[in-house]
């Protein structure tokens, strides 16, 4: 089935002592039309299908893109990145992420909230 909405977000902005990252811009995709969708009948929203298309990645070559699906439009979506060994320590919060129902995509440039670039890495889907 054809997706009716697939947002590639380049507007997610992160808190950073170095300021707004280069990939963070002001482009908000389709929010106006999104909010027109049946506002009085919005569902309780949840995200699922968090995935990445990459099997290996080196941040030196650019940001990584990952995706999630929302069952319904959301009012706000944040993405938290944390060390697997320490789920309570969020190293990066990406805010203003796409809120559309369906497939959404977000870029991460590999930096944490302090602006420190994270590591070259391989990415493994644990599924």
């Amino acid at each position, binding site marked *: 089935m*054809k997706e009716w909405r697939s947002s590639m977000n380049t507007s997610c902005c992160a808190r950073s002592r170095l300021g707004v990252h280069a990939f963070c811009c002001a482009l908000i995709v389709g929010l106006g039309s999104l909010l027109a969708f049946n506002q009085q009948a919005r*569902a309780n929203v*949840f995200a699922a299908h968090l995935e990445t298309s990459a099997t290996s990645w080196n941040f030196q070559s650019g940001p990584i893109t990952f995706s999630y699906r929302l069952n319904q*439009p959301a*009012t706000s979506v944040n993405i938290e990145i944390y060390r697997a060994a320490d789920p309570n320590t969020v190293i990066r919060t990406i805010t203003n992420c796409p809120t559309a129902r369906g497939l959404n995509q977000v870029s991460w440039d590999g930096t944490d909230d302090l602006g420190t670039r994270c590591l070259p890495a391989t990415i*493994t889907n644990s599924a």
Partner: protein
Amino acid sequence: MPAGNDYKFRVIAVDAIGNTSGTWVDITPKPDGVNEIGDAQFGAPQGITINREPTSAHFGRIYISNSASTASTNPGATAAGDGLFLLNNDLTFRGGSASTAAAAANSSLVTSTTTSDVLSPWKCNINQDNPNEIVVSDYLDGYENVWVFNADGTEVQRLLNSSTTGPSTGAAANHGNQFCTLLSGIGTGRKLWAIDEDKDAGGTRFTGGYDLLRYDVGTTLSNYTGQPAEVKNGGTTHTNPTVTNFYSGWDMQFGRVKGTSRLYVACRRGNATTGNLAMVCWTLDGNGNLTGALWSVQNPALSVPAGLPDNYAEGWNYTSSIAVDEARGRGAVVSARVAKVLIFNTETGAIIGPAFTVGNGSTTSYRGIDADFDAAGNLYTANANDGHVRVWSPPDGPNSYTTPYSGTMLLNCPYATPTILVQPVSGKTCEGRSFTFSVVAEGHGAELTYQWKRGSTVVGTNSPTLTLSSVTAADAGNYTVTVNGCGSVTSSVATLTVVANCIPDYNGDNLVNQSDWVLWEACATGPDVPASSECLSASPPKDLDFDGDVDQDDFGIFQKCLNGEYEPDPACVR
């Protein structure tokens, strides 16, 4: 691969608007603004089950068992074929890259294309203790098989095959058309539950009816041949220990929480000819075995709010589904005849309404409507009568659910973890002085970062040195540094001791003068010559720079404190 920096992601999705209508509202996606996403997609969706276990890699996935294949029942149906369909949490078909909806739909069909015997599947349900197992009951092919699929539909087991390998005698032979099957438990504790709707008049193959059967299948993957470990309401007496005239169970559901202690069963109707709704909620023990009835409802007329369908004449019949959302204390039962949903209290069984219509009903008894809740409390209905799958938003108001969903991605650094070449060293200093810890580490493939802690308190980051200026007593303690590179390593503990009084007024006369110099000189050893323990433990310290000897460096500090007839300057030792 060596241990690396592993990261995970979680998506926090919030709906601050929600359903403000106060009632259950159809919020089925309409991609084109007109037609619901489920329009004409399914022939007869008889079953729906949703993975609502947030820790599952397949969290949010929706499974729909389709029991009629073509336009013969729903003109325009594109999801042809009996089988199980995989959908995303937004109701789009999972997979399916083809350009046409039909092709995409069929690419998500995971049963009939690989297993020819899966005909007319009825209910499908996720193993509540293992979301990677989906059990599907087979209805109308005369075999009454029970199939188990993995989460992707790539592995299929015929767990119960009554036609060929199943027992021909005994209680296990007493099952007929199994409208609904459930799985619970894992490993040797895995249990298959089957509810028996038909063959109540003594079918040609089976002699019993209305049974609730439990097979302790354990790790058996196919063709289980054992007798059921438990049978409720066996035979043809229509009598149930807790629900009189329990008749034609059509659906059942666990609380859908791992290790849940309840099993809810809905009957097609209260008795053989009349009546409406019958439900029973059984409790289970820690091993997943039925114990007693928590509550039962045979005719909820007295508790049905005015105006709601409350008897056979009004059409409440063929209760085809029961769905449970224990987290929110509510369940849903669906009538296939009038295509209405009643919401009930999972603690008491009381109908708490409201009733709402979920499409078209049918007087055709075997075309059911199934329902399930998602993780956020929305109700999904799969209507075999009109071929629609719909989503209903609960009247809970806005922002009732946030998803702390743990993603499935790990970033594994491909290089060796850093190593510490020089550990931080314990030390002693005076209040008011500065003190510096340092570490030397090496790593590959990444810039090293550092995090210093005193105990569990983070006191510094991103430097191989930690300088504490104007030290106070509060700075005393055990320090460690974690070096992050490709992976991380934590140093050994280095202790900082803070000496409160370092002013070399050894005779306590509030002066630092010749008399104190005489006392200091008595401990003088020279550079790198260890001082006696007595001198090293003296207070105020004779080893004023705390390097183990008493030499000219210490004298230099002492000398700055010499003040003759005046009060010692506390800054002299800094």
